[in-house]
């Protein structure tokens, strides 16, 4: 809003400058005393800008309910873990509760929980650690009423990082479990 106002003022000033240059180039005509023109004032818009009222859109903007996109965007398909840990963190619980709710609504959906580890461990150990993380998520979902038969697990160990970085920021992203929909989504 304020940016737009300033922009308008700047344009107005430029317009005036052009006008006065034009005035200089033309020959002065002998006339009577002229009233000095008052210095140009930036013109403030008369009314604050009001955006147009939203027009109802016949097709909704977000992903269709029940689709993989709906799950990823509106629920969240990944939760994160602490270093060398596999217990579900407090900040992961609402995400997983949302996943369970969603899965309970779309009963034909089947998922695979993919456990991942950061690169600060050896391959074999991280495969085991990732399996534990995947299983912790599975147990949580089962606890929220999702049928065990709908959930498989796998560990990618440290083989499928999300972030190629080599600092704690990157490692924190790479310690996760992803709930991947394998079947039954719209």
């Amino acid at each position, binding site marked *: 809003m304020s940016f737009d106002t300033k922009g308008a003022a700047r344009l107005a000033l430029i317009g005036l400058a052009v006008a006065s240059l034009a005035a200089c180039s033309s020959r002065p005509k002998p006339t009577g005393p002229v009233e000095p023109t008052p210095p140009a004032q930036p013109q403030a818009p008369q009314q604050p800008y009001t955006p147009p009222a939203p027009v109802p859109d016949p097709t909704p903007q977000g992903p269709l309910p029940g689709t993989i996109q709906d799950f990823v965007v509106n629920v969240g398909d990944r939760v994160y873990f602490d270093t060398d840990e596999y217990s579900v963190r407090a900040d992961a619980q609402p995400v997983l509760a949302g996943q369970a709710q969603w899965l309970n609504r779309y009963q034909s959906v089947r998922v*695979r929980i993919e456990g991942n580890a950061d690169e600060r*461990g*050896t391959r*074999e150990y991280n*495969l*085991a650690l990732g399996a534990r993380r995947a299983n912790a998520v599975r147990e949580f979902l089962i606890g929220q009423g999702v049928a065990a038969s709908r959930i498989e697990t*796998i560990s*990618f160990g440290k*083989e499928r990082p999300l972030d190629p970085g*080599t600092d704690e920021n990157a490692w924190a992203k790479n310690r996760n479990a992803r709930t991947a929909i394998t079947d039954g989504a719209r």
Partner: protein
Amino acid sequence: MTQRKHRLAMPLLAMSLALAGFAATAALPGVAAAQIEIDIDKGAVKPMPVAIPAFAGAQRGADIAQVISGNLERSGLFQPLNVGGVTDKLADVNVQPRFPDWQATGAQALINGQVTVGADGSLRVDFRLWDTFSQQQLLGLQFTSTAENWRRVAHKISDAVYERLTGEKGYFDTRVAFVAESGPKLARVKRLGIMDQDGANPQYITDGSSIVMTPRFSATSQELTYMALRPTGSSIYLLNLQTNRQETVGRFPGMVFAPRFSPDGKKVAFSVEKGGNSDIYVLDLRTRQSTRITTDPAIDTSPSFSPDGTKIVFNSDRGGQAQLYVMNADGSGVRRISYGGGRYTTPVWSPRGDYIAFTKQTGGQFHIGVMKTDGGDERLLTTSYLDEGPTWAPNGRVLMFFREGSAGNPRLWTVDITGRILRPAAYPGAASDPAWSPLLD
């Protein structure tokens, strides 16, 4: 599966001590004292200067000398000299070298040889190892092989020289299985590779469509076990390198990983994950029966047999974080052997039985280390952002492992058990998870 090896596809036809035909050197002084030798346990503070001129003979003479030179140089114990200017051309192995010429180069040892081509195209390679200062012959051997197998002759000669001068078995006539890596870190392609120990003759066995890792040789060198990972699950394969046939260790409800052969090649130990818990199983390859040998709710993985097959070292986080444990091969008698700070993983029992190598994490760094089999005398040999997965050379004195910098390109490296001789292995590409074969035969 349990069948004993064939020869390699290109067998060495004969290897014999070439004592016959050696009359020309009989006049050498027979004094055995004060011979040159290398104390390998001291880690060669200064490598021994050696002269390895091109072998005489039209075919492969220079190539063979070059391969020997490369092997000895990479061991860190020898320093091959540039001897192009020496006028003694050593045209006949049965003629004694002009020792003053070789002494002048500074070489303590001289390796010379000649290549003769048989009527059927086969190669006969005679070589001699000399102590240039005592003017003694230390070795004289003859090898016969097919023409295309000349590199293996060079490796055999390297092994003979290494053993004669260090008192330890060589490890040059060996192969290395590994994971060849390509592509960016977020979409890394991993293929199973196998090559000669010096990086020659690399072959790629899998196409990269699944993530492969942790190849390991059987005692016969003719079989590999490795793990393949796909979104749908993991498999442990047993691959016969001669027939190219492979089979899996069978189906399990969860993940299978971390396979390793028993020293007699009759069993495979590996981890099976069920409901998030990883335990160690042993599969008898003859009966196809697998037995679960750990039952702890902690992570139990990376099993490795002792060379006599009676014990298994593995890592477990049952004590809170990953440490090393030794148990009897049936799972009884578990005891912890690592007590230092940090996390210990990937234990590997030395083929000599005296040490266990491992990966250790402390203070944000990774190390390759060794300890005695009771956990004593721990020694960290390397330090970097990521060092992982040691594998023993068959002589139990050198380890290969992989090192990955922050840029992400893993490379193969070697280090000796003193930690003094640390160097890149001869494979030029990105690679991880090396597995050293036993000596070929």
